[in-house]
């Protein structure tokens, strides 16, 4: 399946033996551009941040003695007279997955040096990300108008509001940062800034974007569905 063409042929030994060789031989340990390794290490640290948020949420939800509000009903919407549970969150999930798909294809076109398609797909990704943030702003406004606050809410346990605003707020901030990041890189691709440097930067930007989608998978499962 992999058609990866390595310029450096010393990274060929498979499995554990290969890992030992990568670490012990007189060469860099990781066969990736430094920018990509740094992005991975940043994403690892970000994984810890979101894990700690979700673990904190688990802890307060386990230990509260009030009734936990039913997310299915809290996030329901009336659409054309139909009562749809959790519908906005489902749409947001599909939008974010679609943006991940367009990003993955942008990476492919970038390595093929198809600048036009890369820019179009990155712009589409940024646009989908911006619409996600828009829907989140709508969701926040709706909940705030219903009286949900970080310290109280009309539906039950007060911890619901504090964890909701903290977790989705931090995720929304990541999406917003990603939209800005994508816009900056797409603009540079359009101007031909990376013609000499190579297009690893698009893959690195993609890693960040897929990570934002990945975090949403966990938030969707643990906060909205549980």
């Amino acid at each position: 399946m992999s058609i990866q063409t390595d310029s450096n042929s010393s990274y060929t030994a498979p499995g554990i033996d290969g890992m030992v060789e990568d670490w012990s031989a007189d060469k860099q340990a990781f066969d990736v551009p430094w920018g990509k390794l740094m992005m991975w290490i940043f994403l690892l640290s970000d994984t810890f941040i979101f894990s700690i948020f979700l673990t904190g949420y688990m802890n307060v939800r386990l230990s509260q003695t009030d009734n936990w509000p039913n997310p299915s009903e809290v996030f329901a919407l009336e659409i054309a007279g139909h009562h749809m549970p959790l519908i906005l969150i489902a749409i947001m999930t599909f939008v974010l997955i679609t943006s991940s798909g367009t990003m993955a294809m942008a990476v492919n076109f970038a390595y093929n040096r198809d600048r036009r398609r890369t820019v179009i797909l990155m712009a589409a990704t940024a646009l989908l990300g911006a619409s996600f943030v828009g829907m989140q702003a709508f969701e926040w406004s709706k909940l705030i108008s219903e009286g949900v606050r970080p310290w109280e809410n009309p539906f039950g346990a007060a911890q619901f509001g504090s964890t909701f605003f903290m977790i989705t707020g931090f995720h929304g901030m990541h999406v917003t940062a990603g939209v800005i990041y994508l816009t900056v890189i797409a603009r540079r691709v359009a101007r031909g800034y990376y013609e000499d440097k190579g297009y690893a930067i698009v893959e690195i930007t993609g890693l960040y974007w897929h990570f934002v989608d990945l975090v949403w998978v966990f938030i969707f499962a643990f906060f909205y569905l549980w």
Partner: protein
Amino acid sequence: MSETAGQQHPIGIYLKIWLLLFVLSTFSYLVDFFHVQGYLRWTLILIFMFLKAGLIVAIFMHVAWERLALKYVLFVPLSAIAVLIALMAIEGDYTFFTREIFFDP
């Protein structure tokens, strides 16, 4: 490093994974839509969540094609999170029981 070709794979695989993620998301939404409750609900949510997360990490983020050296850097530290989750689950249960005993009217 500019000579490194990087991760290149056929477009088709991304489209297939994209479709698969759509289907899995629909399934997890349907779990809520049909009011599946109890252990079945939690099991289904976790299965769909891990499948989606696995596909995103393995294919979209190309981890499936990376060297083992990088995979270990990404996955071994996560065991610390597993320990934290286990400890906080015990702690949360304990706090709940003491609140039930001392604070409930």
